[in-house]
Structure formats: C-alpha cells, structure tokens
C-alpha cells in the first residue's frame, strides 16, 4: 500500500495509468464492435475514452517545459550520436506537447474556431519524429552492444585453425563454391541472431525501451494514415507501451539512461 501511495504521488505515474485505461477502452470498444454488443455500451466506452484523453491533455499542460529541460541536459552528452538523437527527440516532444496544449484549449472552448484536424495532425507528426529518433537511438545502442559482445566473444574464443571447418570453407574440392555459400551465410546469420538475443536478454532497459517505442510508433502511423492498422491494434499497442512505462516507473532501474 505504501508503494501505491508513493507511485500515485508522481503525476507522470497517474498520467500513465490513465493512458493505459484509455487504450484499454480503445481495445474494448473494438472488441465490442466486432462482437456486436449494444450501441449504448459502445457509446459509453467511446465517451469514457474521450474523457480520459481530454483529462490527460490537462495533466500534460506543463510538459513542454520538462521536455525543454531534458533537451538542455542532453546537449552535454559525450557521445555525438546519442547527443544528436536525444536532443532532437526532446525538442520534438516539446513541440508535440505545445500542440497538445493548443488542442486542449480548443477542445475545452478556451480558443474558439480552432482547426482541430490540422493541429492534431501537427502534434502526431512531432510525436512520430520523436519516436523515430528514439528508435534510432535504441538501434544505435543495440549495434554498439552487439559489436562489444562480438569482440568479447572473439577474445574469449579466438578462431583456431580447425581442420574440419577449414576444409569446408576453403577446400579446393570438386564441389563449386556456390553450394557452400548458403551454409556459411546461415551460420553467420545464426551467430548474429544469437548475439542479438544475448544482448537483448542481458540488457532489459534497452529491450524494454525498444519494445515500447516499437509499440508506440503504430499509433501516429495509424492516426496520420501512413500505415492504417485499425483501432484494435492501436489499442493493443498503446496498452502494451503504457504497461511497459508503468513498469519503468515502478522499477527505476529498468529505465534506459541517459
């Protein structure tokens, strides 16, 4: 119970829980529609989802400032790729939150005559750019770790001149080289996949962040019409990424740093 109190006291945690509930409503609405449930229930779920979306916008009113502060911190990173990716990602997130605030003002009636569709598309575009940069950063870190792991393995098991394998690879035998190529490629591919699996298994923060960003990217792709997947899939992706980010809030060691 005490951990719930501490969790609840962070406003980001509350926003994540409401996000999980919102995408659960999206998923529920889709399954109800598929299952042919009553229109009344479907309307209630739709209204609940809209209410949660608007409340989340209210809760996010100050987040542009936070994103700018994170961008200011990211400028001082030593690694240049990380510095570039993270700074631009945070700046895009700040723009996304600014558009989101304008949308909230339009939806609650503070700004009248707002082109909701235009601003909504604008905000999703910034969100998409931020997610692409986050994914780039994840893949860059993954690449670094895979190289590191490959070097580590090479240093532990230096390639010894084994007669059996050498024969197969470079034997001047009668069989043509083309027949030997697929097993070589397959072995190389298998080795790379094993490396990837090892790196992902031993770095849970990176795997979690990669999975979260991959799930998140389907939401703006669907909303902007670039790759329409339907509300059910979007709901499922949103719910998964919300649950993963709640996990990183409960266990701070799971958060990818910087």
């Amino acid at each position, binding site marked *: 119970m005490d951990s719930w109190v501490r969790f609840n006291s*962070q*406003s980001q945690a509350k926003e994540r829980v409401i996000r999980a509930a919102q995408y659960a409503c999206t998923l529920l609405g889709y399954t109800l529609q598929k299952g042919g449930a009553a229109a009344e229930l479907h309307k209630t779920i739709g209204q609940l989802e809209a209410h949660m979306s*608007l409340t989340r916008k209210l809760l996010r009113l100050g987040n542009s400032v*936070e994103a700018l*502060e994170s961008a200011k911190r990211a400028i001082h990173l030593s690694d240049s790729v990380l510095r570039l990716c993270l700074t631009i990602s945070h700046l895009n997130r700040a723009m996304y939150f600014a558009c989101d605030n304008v949308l909230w003002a339009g939806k*609650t*009636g503070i700004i*009248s005559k707002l082109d909701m569709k235009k601003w909504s598309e604008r905000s999703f575009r910034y969100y998409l750019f931020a997610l692409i940069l986050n994914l780039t950063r994840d893949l860059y870190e993954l690449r670094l770790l895979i190289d590191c792991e490959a070097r580590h393995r090479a240093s532990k098991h230096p390639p010894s001149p084994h007669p059996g394998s050498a024969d197969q690879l470079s034997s001047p035998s009668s069989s043509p080289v083309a027949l030997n190529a697929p097993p070589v490629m397959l072995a190389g591919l298998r080795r790379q996949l094993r490396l990837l699996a090892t790196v992902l298994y031993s770095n849970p923060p990176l795997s979690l962040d990669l999975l979260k960003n991959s799930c998140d990217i389907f939401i703006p792709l669907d909303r902007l019409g670039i790759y329409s997947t339907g509300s059910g899939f979007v709901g499922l992706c949103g719910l998964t990424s919300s649950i993963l980010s709640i996990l990183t809030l409960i266990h701070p060691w799971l958060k990818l740093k910087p």
Partner: protein
Amino acid sequence: MDAVVQFTSQSQGRDRIFRATQYACVLSIYLLRNKIERKELLAKLKSLEAAMSAGRKLFRLGNTINSIEAAKRTMQLSDRVLRLCLTAANMTRALYFVCDNALWARNVGLIRDINKERWSLNASRCYFASLVMSLSRDVYVILQLMSQRARDRHFREKMDAHLNENPEVAGVVIPQLDAFLFLLLEIIKSQPAVALDTLKNICDLFIPLDRLGIYRSNAGVVGFCGLISSLIGIVTLAQPKFRLKP
C-alpha cells in the same frame, strides 16, 4: 525552472494549481456576471472551470487509498487528542473521496442509477466533517502552544512590559483580553505553519457551508475562499517548513 518542474512532477502540486485555477475562474465568473459585453469571456471561463473540475475528479480516483494510509499512520500517534482528530479527519476524507468517485462514475456514464444530488450532498457532508476535525486539531495545537508559551518566564517578562506600556490605550481596558491576543499573535508569528493551516481550513469551510445551505454566501465568496486556500496549499507544498506536522 528546475523548482517549477520538480513541483509539478508531484501529482499533488499539479492538483493544487488546477484547484487554484478553478476557484479563480469561479471568482472571475462572479465578478463579471453582470457585464454583458464580456459574454464570450464568461463562456470561456465557465468551460475552463468545468474542464478543471472534471479533470480533477478523475485525478482523485486513487486518493481514497491515500487517505486510509494516512489514517493508519495517524492512529499510531502518541497524543490522544491529535490521534482522534487526525484519524477522524482522514477517515471522513476517505469517505468524501468514495462519494466523489461515485459522482465521477455517474458523470462519465459508467453507473447510471445513483441519485446525483444525494451523493453530492453526502460528499459535501463528509468534506465538512473532515474540515471540522482538522480545525479542532488546529485549535488544540494553538491552545497547547499558548499554554506552553505562557509558562515561559522570558515571555512573561515581555508581556508584562507590553501591558505596562500605555495604560490609557483602549485595548488595555480588558487586560485579560489584551494578554490573550498578545499571546495569540506571538504564537502566530513564531509558528507560521499552524497559522497557515488554520487559515486554510477556515477558508475551505465556506465551500461546504454554502453547498449544504448552513451559511449561504455567494459564488464570489466561495471562489475567493477556495482561491486563498489553494494558494496556501501551494505554498505549504513548495516550502515544507510551512507544513504542519504530523
């Protein structure tokens, strides 16, 4: 900037800012109610207030557990009066949150067959009870501090000096009252946390008093008192030394 970010990262900090905005809207709506040329601004203020109120109800969904946890903690206090007042205040506040959550579910459409007016009155009654218990605790703490101070010799010398200053002043006609007020002012100056908490609870009290019909003021008074108590709440959260413990 850093302090602002840290303040808003606490969910209570954000809630207090929204509450202050909500009651500022209520006050502004009351002040502008007769101005025909400001009709559009009035409509915008009303929709802002409604948005804040609805949003805050959703944020408060988890607070019942917070209040029950706080009640469990205050049951361990050593002082009997404090234990009684604070536990009762926390339990009635938990009941208030339960009523509030039911009202939220009704507004959103999840529950349909509850009497909105009855539950709203119950919520106000629980809130009123918790404010009365908090005020009793404040009064008890002030009386305790006053009796402690009165026994202090250094202070008694100061009070005697003040009383003998100008015997012609009207306030000294009732010397006991003058002494009492002097002691009270001393306590307020040296213990700002108690004073702020008392003022906050008194301001908050006007809201359920108006809602329950016990002391009908107008929307302007409710808005003003709500705004003052929210601002005091923001100050106590930003500066922990102004928060009354336990």
